[in-house]
């Protein structure tokens, strides 16, 4: 099914797309049919630069298992970082 399950979050940073680096300000996280990954449903993350229109997007499509592993890895790295870094 098309789940449309989506979480949106404001972010601050950069992402590299087909035309180079761009500043991204929005992120969509959703579980739905992938465009490319060989699974029925994937955890998809779009890093977005809305001012560039629909093509202002860096996309990943992850298996649900690998998405959970990624969450843990991101959390672990952030937790391990020395305090005070900016």
């Amino acid at each position, binding site marked *: 099914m*098309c789940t449309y399950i989506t979480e949106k979050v404001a972010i601050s940073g950069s992402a590299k797309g087909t035309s180079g680096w761009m500043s991204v300000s929005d992120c969509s996280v959703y579980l739905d049919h992938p465009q490319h990954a060989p699974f029925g449903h994937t955890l998809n993350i779009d890093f977005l630069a809305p001012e560039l229109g*629909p093509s202002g997007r860096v996309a990943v499509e992850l298996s649900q298992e690998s998405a959970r592993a990624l969450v843990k890895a991101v959390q672990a790295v952030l937790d391990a970082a020395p305090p005070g870094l900016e």
Partner: protein
Amino acid sequence: MTDALIAETITITADNGDEVQAYSARALDEAPRGGVVVIHHLPGYDDETKEIARTFAYHGYNAVVPNLYWRQAPGAAPDDAAAAVRAQGGIPDEQLVTDVAGAAAYLKGLPNSNGKVGTIGYCSGGRHSFLAAVSLDLDAAVDCYGAFVTGEIREDFPLKVTTLVDRTPNLSCPLLGLFGAEDKYPSPEHVAELEEALKAAGKTYEFHSYPDAGHAFFSVNRPAYRVEAANDGWARIFDFYGRYI
């Protein structure tokens, strides 16, 4: 008599006057024939949907795929357009209906049209095919595993649509439904609910549910592809259209 066909990107005029991009695949033979509006799935106006249109043309029909995301993302790559539309909660039902009406008018205006038009849609397009058939005067409609025609939609569901089962009495044409028995949306219960509504309204319909198949079993580029269900489904589609358009 020729089996030559042409496939190309064109612009059609929606019923509300908007210009919309579309992909046309049509037979060059001059003998009259029916037309098929191919309604793409949530992942967008993609290569595989265009291939479906060419398959219809190869089998002697005129086919057209309106780019349902053209208004929201003109000129964008199909996957980027799909992401943008998805983030907005899909396209409004009214937009779908006016685009299909424009696509049907385009097909009926072709020199080799027999004046008959059917629709077919997959996944979200299955619901859209049913939506078109309860909204427009069509000759045949095919619903391939369209979710949310029946059942319930939670209030917090991001897709801003309603079920359509209450509009079953307005169905303007015979309906072919192709479903996977292992699908959850639509589940066998959802399909049964639609079948009951069609019976109650006295409508002409044919439903086939395939064991060992789930959602998107026609999708040749996805793991959900099920060759036996897809092959039989294609045969059912051509049999159905052969009788009605």
